[in-house]
Protein backbone atom coordinates (compact mmCIF):
# COMPACT_ATOMS: atom_id res chain seq x y z
CA UNK A 1 0.00 0.00 0.00
CA UNK A 2 1.22 3.47 -0.95
CA UNK A 3 2.10 5.71 2.01
CA UNK A 4 3.75 8.81 0.57
CA UNK A 5 3.75 10.74 -2.67
CA UNK A 6 6.68 13.10 -2.91
CA UNK A 7 6.63 15.81 -5.55
CA UNK A 8 9.81 17.88 -5.62
CA UNK A 9 10.71 20.95 -7.63
CA UNK A 10 8.28 19.95 -10.38
CA UNK A 11 7.92 21.94 -13.59
CA UNK A 12 5.52 21.15 -16.42
CA UNK A 13 5.51 22.68 -19.87
CA UNK A 14 3.10 22.22 -22.74
CA UNK A 15 4.90 23.01 -25.95
CA UNK A 16 6.92 26.20 -25.40
CA UNK A 17 4.84 27.40 -22.47
CA UNK A 18 5.79 26.62 -18.87
CA UNK A 19 2.61 26.02 -16.88
CA UNK A 20 4.23 26.05 -13.46
CA UNK A 21 7.61 25.35 -11.93
CA UNK A 22 9.17 24.70 -8.52
CA UNK A 23 6.14 22.88 -7.18
CA UNK A 24 6.71 20.90 -4.00
CA UNK A 25 3.97 18.76 -2.55
CA UNK A 26 4.02 15.86 -0.12
CA UNK A 27 0.94 13.75 0.32
CA UNK A 28 0.82 11.17 3.10
CA UNK A 29 -1.42 8.26 3.88
CA UNK A 30 -4.81 9.53 5.09
CA UNK A 31 -4.50 12.95 3.48
CA UNK A 32 -6.43 14.71 0.76
CA UNK A 33 -5.20 17.69 -1.24
CA UNK A 34 -7.14 19.81 -3.67
CA UNK A 35 -5.49 21.60 -6.55
CA UNK A 36 -6.95 25.01 -7.19
CA UNK A 37 -6.09 27.54 -9.85
CA UNK A 38 -7.49 29.30 -12.89
CA UNK A 39 -8.37 27.42 -16.08
CA UNK A 40 -5.26 26.26 -17.90
CA UNK A 41 -3.02 26.64 -14.83
CA UNK A 42 -1.90 23.02 -15.14
CA UNK A 43 -4.05 21.14 -12.63
CA UNK A 44 -4.94 18.38 -15.09
CA UNK A 45 -1.33 18.26 -16.34
CA UNK A 46 -0.09 17.76 -12.79
CA UNK A 47 -2.50 14.87 -12.26
CA UNK A 48 -1.43 13.30 -15.56
CA UNK A 49 2.23 13.72 -14.60
CA UNK A 50 1.64 11.92 -11.30
CA UNK A 51 -0.16 9.17 -13.22
CA UNK A 52 2.85 8.88 -15.52
CA UNK A 53 0.98 9.89 -18.66
CA UNK A 54 2.88 13.12 -19.10
CA UNK A 55 6.58 13.73 -18.69
CA UNK A 56 7.49 16.68 -16.44
CA UNK A 57 9.97 19.24 -17.77
CA UNK A 58 11.92 19.15 -14.49
CA UNK A 59 11.72 17.77 -10.98
CA UNK A 60 10.72 14.40 -9.63
CA UNK A 61 7.67 12.49 -8.47
CA UNK A 62 8.46 9.73 -6.00
CA UNK A 63 6.34 7.08 -4.31
CA UNK A 64 6.93 5.27 -1.02
CA UNK A 65 5.18 2.38 0.66
CA UNK A 66 5.65 1.26 4.27
CA UNK A 67 9.20 0.05 3.53
CA UNK A 68 10.58 3.06 1.68
CA UNK A 69 10.73 4.26 -1.92
CA UNK A 70 9.27 2.03 -4.65
CA UNK A 71 9.62 2.07 -8.42
CA UNK A 72 7.39 4.67 -10.05
CA UNK A 73 6.24 2.15 -12.69
CA UNK A 74 5.15 -0.32 -10.00
CA UNK A 75 3.40 2.40 -8.05
CA UNK A 76 1.53 3.52 -11.15
CA UNK A 77 0.57 0.04 -12.28
CA UNK A 78 -0.61 -1.12 -8.87
CA UNK A 79 -1.38 1.70 -6.49
CA UNK A 80 -2.92 4.68 -8.22
CA UNK A 81 -5.98 5.38 -10.27
CA UNK A 82 -6.84 8.48 -12.23
CA UNK A 83 -10.29 9.68 -13.14
CA UNK A 84 -9.96 12.23 -15.92
CA UNK A 85 -12.35 14.52 -17.75
CA UNK A 86 -13.31 11.64 -19.98
CA UNK A 87 -14.83 8.55 -18.47
CA UNK A 88 -13.24 6.12 -20.92
CA UNK A 89 -16.52 4.32 -21.61
CA UNK A 90 -17.41 2.77 -24.96
CA UNK A 91 -20.89 3.91 -25.95
CA UNK A 92 -21.83 0.66 -27.71
CA UNK A 93 -21.08 -1.60 -24.75
CA UNK A 94 -23.28 -2.12 -21.72
CA UNK A 95 -22.50 -0.42 -18.44
CA UNK A 96 -21.75 -3.75 -16.80
CA UNK A 97 -19.37 -4.87 -19.58
CA UNK A 98 -17.41 -1.66 -19.24
CA UNK A 99 -17.41 -1.62 -15.44
CA UNK A 100 -16.39 -5.28 -15.30
CA UNK A 101 -13.54 -4.86 -17.79
CA UNK A 102 -12.20 -1.68 -16.24
CA UNK A 103 -12.36 -3.10 -12.73
CA UNK A 104 -10.58 -6.33 -13.68
CA UNK A 105 -8.00 -4.39 -15.71
CA UNK A 106 -7.17 -2.13 -12.79
CA UNK A 107 -6.80 -4.97 -10.33
CA UNK A 108 -10.27 -5.33 -8.82
CA UNK A 109 -12.56 -8.34 -8.87
CA UNK A 110 -16.04 -9.01 -10.16
CA UNK A 111 -17.35 -8.90 -6.57
CA UNK A 112 -15.78 -5.52 -5.93
CA UNK A 113 -17.32 -4.24 -9.19
CA UNK A 114 -20.78 -5.43 -8.07
CA UNK A 115 -20.36 -3.92 -4.62
CA UNK A 116 -19.27 -0.60 -6.10
CA UNK A 117 -22.21 -0.59 -8.52
CA UNK A 118 -24.52 -1.13 -5.55
CA UNK A 119 -22.82 1.68 -3.67
CA UNK A 120 -23.37 4.18 -6.48
CA UNK A 121 -26.94 3.07 -7.07
CA UNK A 122 -26.19 1.71 -10.54
CA UNK A 123 -27.83 -1.69 -10.27
CA UNK A 124 -30.76 -0.89 -12.55
CA UNK A 125 -28.52 0.71 -15.16
CA UNK A 126 -26.00 -2.09 -15.60
CA UNK A 127 -27.79 -3.73 -18.54
CA UNK A 128 -28.12 -0.49 -20.49
CA UNK A 129 -25.75 0.55 -23.22
CA UNK A 130 -23.46 3.36 -22.13
CA UNK A 131 -24.91 5.65 -24.83
CA UNK A 132 -28.23 5.63 -22.98
CA UNK A 133 -26.73 6.94 -19.74
CA UNK A 134 -26.73 10.58 -18.74
CA UNK A 135 -23.50 12.46 -18.01
CA UNK A 136 -24.07 12.05 -14.27
CA UNK A 137 -24.76 8.34 -14.60
CA UNK A 138 -21.60 7.86 -16.66
CA UNK A 139 -19.60 9.66 -14.03
CA UNK A 140 -21.09 7.42 -11.35
CA UNK A 141 -20.06 4.42 -13.43
CA UNK A 142 -16.51 5.79 -13.58
CA UNK A 143 -16.55 6.43 -9.82
CA UNK A 144 -17.70 2.86 -9.26
CA UNK A 145 -14.65 1.68 -11.23
CA UNK A 146 -12.46 3.92 -9.08
CA UNK A 147 -13.79 2.38 -5.87
CA UNK A 148 -13.84 -1.18 -7.23
CA UNK A 149 -10.21 -1.12 -8.35
CA UNK A 150 -9.09 -0.57 -4.74
CA UNK A 151 -6.09 1.68 -5.34
CA UNK A 152 -4.67 3.75 -2.51
CA UNK A 153 -3.96 6.96 -4.44
CA UNK A 154 -6.89 8.58 -6.21
CA UNK A 155 -6.19 11.26 -8.80
CA UNK A 156 -9.45 13.03 -9.53
CA UNK A 157 -10.03 15.64 -12.18
CA UNK A 158 -13.21 17.61 -11.42
CA UNK A 159 -14.87 14.47 -10.07
CA UNK A 160 -18.06 16.16 -8.90
CA UNK A 161 -18.89 18.28 -11.93
CA UNK A 162 -21.79 16.28 -13.44
CA UNK A 163 -23.17 14.90 -10.14
CA UNK A 164 -26.38 16.05 -8.47
CA UNK A 165 -26.45 17.17 -4.82
CA UNK A 166 -27.43 13.75 -3.45
CA UNK A 167 -24.70 11.97 -5.39
CA UNK A 168 -22.13 14.57 -4.33
CA UNK A 169 -22.91 13.84 -0.70
CA UNK A 170 -22.73 10.10 -1.35
CA UNK A 171 -19.35 10.44 -3.08
CA UNK A 172 -18.18 12.64 -0.19
CA UNK A 173 -18.90 9.75 2.16
CA UNK A 174 -16.97 7.38 -0.12
CA UNK A 175 -13.97 9.72 -0.14
CA UNK A 176 -14.08 10.16 3.64
CA UNK A 177 -14.05 6.37 3.99
CA UNK A 178 -11.10 6.09 1.61
CA UNK A 179 -9.13 8.66 3.61
CA UNK A 180 -10.03 7.03 6.91
CA UNK A 181 -8.72 3.73 5.53
CA UNK A 182 -5.30 5.26 4.88
CA UNK A 183 -5.87 6.23 1.25
CA UNK A 184 -4.78 9.44 -0.45
CA UNK A 185 -6.67 11.81 -2.71
CA UNK A 186 -5.27 14.44 -5.05
CA UNK A 187 -8.11 16.27 -6.74
CA UNK A 188 -8.44 19.17 -9.10
CA UNK A 189 -11.54 21.15 -8.15
CA UNK A 190 -13.34 24.43 -8.53
CA UNK A 191 -15.88 23.79 -5.76
CA UNK A 192 -14.36 22.59 -2.48
CA UNK A 193 -14.51 18.87 -1.75
CA UNK A 194 -16.99 17.80 0.96
CA UNK A 195 -14.13 16.40 3.06
CA UNK A 196 -11.31 18.11 4.93
CA UNK A 197 -8.51 18.72 2.43
CA UNK A 198 -5.39 20.80 2.10
CA UNK A 199 -5.59 23.32 -0.71
CA UNK A 200 -2.67 23.72 -3.10
CA UNK A 201 -2.52 26.69 -5.42
CA UNK A 202 -1.25 25.85 -8.90
CA UNK A 203 0.35 28.38 -11.22
CA UNK A 204 -0.05 31.30 -8.82
Amino acid at each position, binding site marked *: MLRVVLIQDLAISRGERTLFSKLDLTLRSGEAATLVGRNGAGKTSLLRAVAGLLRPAAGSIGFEDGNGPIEADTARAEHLHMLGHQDG*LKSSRTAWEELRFQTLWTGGTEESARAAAQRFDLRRLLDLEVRRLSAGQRRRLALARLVASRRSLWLLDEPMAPLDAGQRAAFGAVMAEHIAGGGMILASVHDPLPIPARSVEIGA
Partner: protein
Amino acid sequence: MRAFGILLRRELALAWGKGGGPLLALTFYACVVVLLPMASGRAPERLASIAPGIAWLALALAALLSLERLFERDYEDGTLDLLAMGPAPLEAVAVAKCLAQWLATGAPLALAAPVAALMLGADLKVMPLLVLCALAGGLAFAFLGGLGAALALGSKRGGLLVAVIVLPLFAPPVIFGAGALDGYAAGLPWTGGLLFLLAYSAGAVALTPLAMGAACRSALD
Protein backbone atom coordinates in the same frame (compact mmCIF):
# COMPACT_ATOMS: atom_id res chain seq x y z
CA MET B 1 -0.90 -12.68 -18.23
CA ARG B 2 -4.35 -12.65 -16.65
CA ALA B 3 -4.68 -8.99 -17.52
CA PHE B 4 -3.61 -9.72 -21.10
CA GLY B 5 -6.41 -12.28 -21.40
CA ILE B 6 -8.98 -9.84 -20.02
CA LEU B 7 -7.88 -7.19 -22.49
CA LEU B 8 -7.79 -9.58 -25.45
CA ARG B 9 -11.34 -10.70 -24.72
CA ARG B 10 -12.54 -7.11 -24.63
CA GLU B 11 -10.73 -6.16 -27.81
CA LEU B 12 -12.22 -9.19 -29.56
CA ALA B 13 -15.69 -8.26 -28.38
CA LEU B 14 -15.16 -4.73 -29.69
CA ALA B 15 -13.72 -5.92 -33.01
CA TRP B 16 -16.53 -8.44 -33.58
CA GLY B 17 -19.12 -5.98 -32.39
CA LYS B 18 -21.55 -3.73 -34.13
CA GLY B 19 -20.65 -1.60 -37.09
CA GLY B 20 -17.95 -3.58 -38.82
CA GLY B 21 -15.81 -6.46 -37.75
CA PRO B 22 -15.42 -9.49 -39.97
CA LEU B 23 -18.60 -8.94 -41.98
CA LEU B 24 -17.52 -5.53 -43.24
CA ALA B 25 -14.03 -6.76 -44.15
CA LEU B 26 -15.43 -9.82 -45.93
CA THR B 27 -17.92 -7.74 -47.90
CA PHE B 28 -15.20 -5.34 -48.95
CA TYR B 29 -13.00 -8.26 -49.91
CA ALA B 30 -15.75 -9.77 -52.04
CA CYS B 31 -16.29 -6.44 -53.81
CA VAL B 32 -12.61 -6.02 -54.68
CA VAL B 33 -12.34 -9.60 -55.88
CA VAL B 34 -15.42 -9.18 -58.09
CA LEU B 35 -14.32 -5.81 -59.50
CA LEU B 36 -10.71 -6.64 -60.38
CA PRO B 37 -11.53 -9.27 -63.07
CA MET B 38 -13.98 -6.83 -64.68
CA ALA B 39 -11.06 -4.50 -65.27
CA SER B 40 -8.73 -7.20 -66.52
CA GLY B 41 -10.69 -8.06 -69.68
CA ARG B 42 -12.36 -11.31 -70.69
CA ALA B 43 -9.85 -14.07 -70.97
CA PRO B 44 -10.62 -16.79 -68.46
CA GLU B 45 -7.22 -18.42 -68.82
CA ARG B 46 -5.41 -15.15 -68.09
CA LEU B 47 -7.72 -14.54 -65.12
CA ALA B 48 -7.05 -18.04 -63.81
CA SER B 49 -3.32 -17.43 -63.90
CA ILE B 50 -3.52 -14.21 -61.86
CA ALA B 51 -6.34 -15.39 -59.59
CA PRO B 52 -4.19 -16.31 -56.57
CA GLY B 53 -2.40 -12.98 -56.89
CA ILE B 54 -5.67 -11.05 -56.94
CA ALA B 55 -7.04 -12.97 -53.98
CA TRP B 56 -3.81 -12.21 -52.14
CA LEU B 57 -3.56 -8.50 -52.98
CA ALA B 58 -7.20 -7.89 -52.09
CA LEU B 59 -6.40 -9.27 -48.63
CA ALA B 60 -3.85 -6.52 -48.06
CA LEU B 61 -6.41 -3.88 -49.06
CA ALA B 62 -9.14 -5.36 -46.86
CA ALA B 63 -6.73 -5.39 -43.93
CA LEU B 64 -6.56 -1.58 -44.11
CA LEU B 65 -10.25 -1.13 -43.43
CA SER B 66 -10.72 -0.93 -39.71
CA LEU B 67 -7.19 0.09 -38.79
CA GLU B 68 -8.05 3.69 -38.08
CA ARG B 69 -10.25 2.72 -35.16
CA LEU B 70 -7.65 0.50 -33.56
CA PHE B 71 -6.17 3.12 -31.22
CA GLU B 72 -8.01 6.28 -32.20
CA ARG B 73 -11.30 5.49 -30.45
CA ASP B 74 -9.58 4.57 -27.20
CA TYR B 75 -7.50 7.71 -27.47
CA GLU B 76 -10.53 9.94 -28.02
CA ASP B 77 -12.74 8.57 -25.25
CA GLY B 78 -10.01 8.35 -22.61
CA THR B 79 -9.75 4.56 -22.51
CA LEU B 80 -6.11 4.73 -23.57
CA ASP B 81 -5.31 6.60 -20.31
CA LEU B 82 -6.90 3.77 -18.41
CA LEU B 83 -5.05 1.13 -20.44
CA ALA B 84 -1.77 2.97 -19.85
CA MET B 85 -2.32 2.84 -16.07
CA GLY B 86 -3.08 -0.86 -16.03
CA PRO B 87 -0.94 -3.81 -15.00
CA ALA B 88 0.52 -4.44 -18.47
CA PRO B 89 2.81 -2.07 -20.39
CA LEU B 90 1.46 -0.30 -23.46
CA GLU B 91 3.49 -2.66 -25.64
CA ALA B 92 1.41 -5.59 -24.37
CA VAL B 93 -1.75 -3.55 -24.89
CA ALA B 94 -0.69 -3.03 -28.50
CA VAL B 95 -0.07 -6.76 -28.97
CA ALA B 96 -3.53 -7.57 -27.60
CA LYS B 97 -5.14 -5.05 -29.95
CA CYS B 98 -3.32 -6.30 -33.05
CA LEU B 99 -3.94 -9.92 -32.15
CA ALA B 100 -7.65 -9.21 -31.74
CA GLN B 101 -7.62 -7.37 -35.06
CA TRP B 102 -6.06 -10.43 -36.70
CA LEU B 103 -8.50 -12.85 -35.10
CA ALA B 104 -11.52 -10.73 -35.98
CA THR B 105 -10.65 -9.76 -39.56
CA GLY B 106 -7.39 -11.43 -40.69
CA ALA B 107 -8.39 -14.99 -39.91
CA PRO B 108 -11.90 -14.81 -41.46
CA LEU B 109 -10.36 -13.20 -44.56
CA ALA B 110 -7.77 -15.98 -44.77
CA LEU B 111 -10.62 -18.50 -44.87
CA ALA B 112 -12.41 -16.48 -47.54
CA ALA B 113 -9.31 -16.18 -49.74
CA PRO B 114 -9.47 -19.70 -51.24
CA VAL B 115 -13.16 -19.25 -52.04
CA ALA B 116 -12.34 -16.05 -53.90
CA ALA B 117 -9.42 -17.64 -55.73
CA LEU B 118 -11.61 -20.59 -56.72
CA MET B 119 -14.28 -18.26 -58.10
CA LEU B 120 -11.64 -16.61 -60.25
CA GLY B 121 -10.62 -19.99 -61.63
CA ALA B 122 -7.42 -20.70 -59.74
CA ASP B 123 -6.13 -24.25 -59.52
CA LEU B 124 -7.31 -26.18 -56.47
CA LYS B 125 -3.82 -27.27 -55.53
CA VAL B 126 -2.72 -23.73 -54.47
CA MET B 127 -5.47 -23.42 -51.86
CA PRO B 128 -3.58 -24.78 -48.84
CA LEU B 129 -0.65 -22.51 -49.61
CA LEU B 130 -2.97 -19.55 -50.13
CA VAL B 131 -4.56 -20.06 -46.72
CA LEU B 132 -1.14 -20.37 -45.10
CA CYS B 133 0.12 -17.20 -46.81
CA ALA B 134 -3.09 -15.37 -45.90
CA LEU B 135 -2.82 -16.36 -42.23
CA ALA B 136 0.86 -15.44 -41.91
CA GLY B 137 0.52 -12.34 -44.08
CA GLY B 138 -2.59 -11.28 -42.18
CA LEU B 139 -0.57 -11.30 -38.98
CA ALA B 140 1.99 -8.99 -40.58
CA PHE B 141 -0.79 -6.75 -41.96
CA ALA B 142 -2.43 -6.50 -38.53
CA PHE B 143 0.77 -5.58 -36.68
CA LEU B 144 2.08 -3.19 -39.34
CA GLY B 145 -1.37 -1.68 -39.53
CA GLY B 146 -1.34 -1.22 -35.76
CA LEU B 147 1.95 0.61 -36.13
CA GLY B 148 0.42 2.97 -38.66
CA ALA B 149 -2.64 3.49 -36.47
CA ALA B 150 -0.51 4.28 -33.42
CA LEU B 151 1.68 6.72 -35.36
CA ALA B 152 -1.37 8.51 -36.76
CA LEU B 153 -2.90 8.98 -33.29
CA GLY B 154 -4.30 12.43 -32.73
CA SER B 155 -3.78 13.64 -36.28
CA LYS B 156 -6.53 14.97 -38.48
CA ARG B 157 -7.52 12.63 -41.30
CA GLY B 158 -5.88 9.78 -39.47
CA GLY B 159 -7.40 7.18 -41.78
CA LEU B 160 -5.64 8.51 -44.84
CA LEU B 161 -2.37 8.86 -42.96
CA VAL B 162 -2.59 5.26 -41.77
CA ALA B 163 -2.90 4.04 -45.36
CA VAL B 164 0.04 6.17 -46.50
CA ILE B 165 2.25 4.93 -43.66
CA VAL B 166 1.23 1.33 -43.94
CA LEU B 167 0.98 0.55 -47.66
CA PRO B 168 4.74 0.75 -48.37
CA LEU B 169 5.31 -1.61 -45.44
CA PHE B 170 2.78 -4.00 -46.98
CA ALA B 171 4.88 -4.26 -50.16
CA PRO B 172 7.41 -6.89 -48.99
CA PRO B 173 4.85 -9.41 -47.67
CA VAL B 174 2.71 -8.94 -50.77
CA ILE B 175 5.74 -9.63 -52.99
CA PHE B 176 6.91 -12.63 -50.97
CA GLY B 177 3.44 -14.16 -50.83
CA ALA B 178 2.77 -13.60 -54.53
CA GLY B 179 6.19 -15.08 -55.34
CA ALA B 180 5.43 -18.22 -53.35
CA LEU B 181 1.96 -18.62 -54.88
CA ASP B 182 3.16 -18.01 -58.44
CA GLY B 183 6.08 -20.36 -58.08
CA TYR B 184 3.93 -23.09 -56.59
CA ALA B 185 1.29 -22.82 -59.29
CA ALA B 186 3.93 -22.92 -62.05
CA GLY B 187 5.85 -25.78 -60.52
CA LEU B 188 8.89 -23.58 -59.77
CA PRO B 189 10.76 -23.27 -56.44
CA TRP B 190 8.40 -21.53 -54.02
CA THR B 191 9.60 -22.24 -50.48
CA GLY B 192 11.91 -19.21 -50.48
CA GLY B 193 9.03 -16.76 -50.89
CA LEU B 194 7.04 -18.48 -48.16
CA LEU B 195 9.96 -18.48 -45.74
CA PHE B 196 10.59 -14.79 -46.39
CA LEU B 197 6.90 -14.10 -45.75
CA LEU B 198 6.98 -16.04 -42.47
CA ALA B 199 10.18 -14.27 -41.41
CA TYR B 200 8.71 -10.86 -42.26
CA SER B 201 5.58 -11.63 -40.24
CA ALA B 202 7.62 -12.84 -37.28
CA GLY B 203 9.75 -9.70 -37.46
CA ALA B 204 6.66 -7.49 -37.56
CA VAL B 205 5.09 -9.25 -34.56
CA ALA B 206 8.32 -8.96 -32.58
CA LEU B 207 9.29 -5.38 -33.37
CA THR B 208 6.19 -3.28 -34.04
CA PRO B 209 4.82 -3.51 -30.45
CA LEU B 210 7.86 -1.54 -29.24
CA ALA B 211 7.16 1.21 -31.74
CA MET B 212 3.42 1.14 -31.01
CA GLY B 213 4.05 1.52 -27.27
CA ALA B 214 6.33 4.49 -27.86
CA ALA B 215 3.87 6.09 -30.30
CA CYS B 216 0.98 5.74 -27.83
CA ARG B 217 3.05 7.22 -25.03
CA SER B 218 4.02 10.19 -27.11
CA ALA B 219 0.40 10.71 -28.16
CA LEU B 220 -0.71 10.73 -24.50
CA ASP B 221 2.04 13.12 -23.41
